[in-house]
């Protein structure tokens, strides 16, 4: 059982990570995301593939630090759905879409 401080820190980290995701997704536009999800293309994968090597390194470091703190990609996506309710139908629209996105994040970390 982790301490209260650790749980609180993890909670705030999840909120912060989800907020950053939301800001990036809002830049792309929800309509575009819906089109991608409808076509079965991974939003996370597309986004990460489009990033520069520097950005990729930065994201890897951030995600690795989050994992060490006990923050999983699943938790971040859940928080993202809370902050951006329009994402809920996208994530739950197709079976296993969320799982695919989590898998993309993890494979990105292992690259």
């Amino acid at each position, binding site marked *: 059982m982790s301490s209260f401080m650790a749980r609180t820190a993890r909670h705030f980290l999840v909120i912060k990570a989800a907020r950053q995701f939301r800001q990036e997704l809002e830049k*792309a536009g929800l309509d575009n995301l819906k*089109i991608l999800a*409808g076509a079965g*293309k991974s939003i996370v994968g597309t*986004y990460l593939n*489009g*990033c520069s090597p*520097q*950005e990729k390194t930065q994201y890897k470091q951030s995600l690795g630090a989050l994992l060490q703190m006990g923050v999983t990609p699943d938790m971040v996506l859940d928080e993202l759905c809370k902050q951006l309710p329009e994402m809920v139908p996208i994530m739950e629209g197709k079976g296993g879409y969320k799982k695919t996105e989590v898998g993309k994040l993890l494979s990105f970390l292992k690259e």
Partner: protein
Amino acid sequence: MANITELLEALNTKEASVSTADLAGELKASKEGTLKQLNREKDKGTVEGNSQEGWLITDAGRKALEKGDIHPSMIDEEVTMRQQFEAIARRIGIKEDRIVLASDIVWSGDYNDVKWVWQALGQADIADDLRSVWVNAWRAKLHKGIPPELETELTGVSKTEAAEEGKDTSKGRDYIIIDDEPLRVGENLGDYNLQDAKDILTIRTLKGRLAGAQAGGGHGAGSPPGATEKVSDLITALTPLLKKDSDVDALKEILADKLALQRQEILSHIPQPGPDAQPKTFLEQITEFVGALGGLKEAGPTLRTILGIPESSSGNPGTTAVPVQLKGANGEPIVMDLSKYIDLERFRGEERRADERHGQLMGLAKTVRENIPDGVAALKTAATEIKGGAKTPAPEQPQLYECGQCHTQFGVPPGQWEKVACPSCKAEYMHDEVVGP
């Protein structure tokens, strides 16, 4: 100042706290000294309190008093140098506040230096009579002699008074001359008194300077006794006169005569062309002139001043054709080290090239940064591609034709057609004429 035992015993007899002033009065000591003692004892833990609340002896103090286990420090025993210095002043009768101020000033410098102590007490505005007694007593404690500079002040007898009283100058021969400096070796152990030593050194200096000027004149050996020697002899002969109480005008006259003689003698050594001399060629005259100027340059400022030759302000060495060797402060010739300058220039060039390279790299980085891919842009592009299914081709531009008569450009109707008319001149063209068979 009372000792520690007396202080603690005085406190031990009191049942209530006692002020510093009362305690000092009881011990017949100064308030400042008693306060210092009390603060030191407070640090040891034998007393407690302060100046405002009063002072009390502690249990530890009582025990120490009973045991007799009190070991006064150097400060308690008043054996530090400063306390001894202040004790002398108290014995003289200087006020306590003046003592503290004077001691602070003295201890801001070297208190072993009698000259400094004298100056410091002067800065503390101590009267001269008290100051000389204080410094003399301190000097005796330091086992130091009277510095020559303070002889008048510390002995209380000025040189003029000594001269007026007609004291025998043979007495007080305390000095010898070493390395052109008068050095006191003890009472009647030397060769000269201070005034004699100074006079001799002055004469020696003057003699040496004139000898240098004589040597700079460029006259060879074998010449008759030089003017310098004569002048120095004259000065030596005049020395007793100078020491006596001659009036100022007489001294000035003697000095003027001496300088005139010196000038005449030096000028006499410069060869003058006689009336029966052989006429010299122009080249010989120029050579002699240049040589004379070179000789004058070597003679230095003293000879030039005596001869009335103005000193050249420009100092152009080319006029005398004598190379000038610059010398540094240590007397060593200054050598221009070009390698350091070359290294400096090389370093500057490398720095300039490095700056330019850095600027180009920064520009390149900026260009790369502007063209690096963006995740959001990738999402938008992917969505656009999916939306359009494929890349939508650009709309085809309609083919235009030119009228052969009025040269107006016109299009053809879509689909099948047989004839088309120019919108300007209404000239008609068949399908085969426009498009071709």
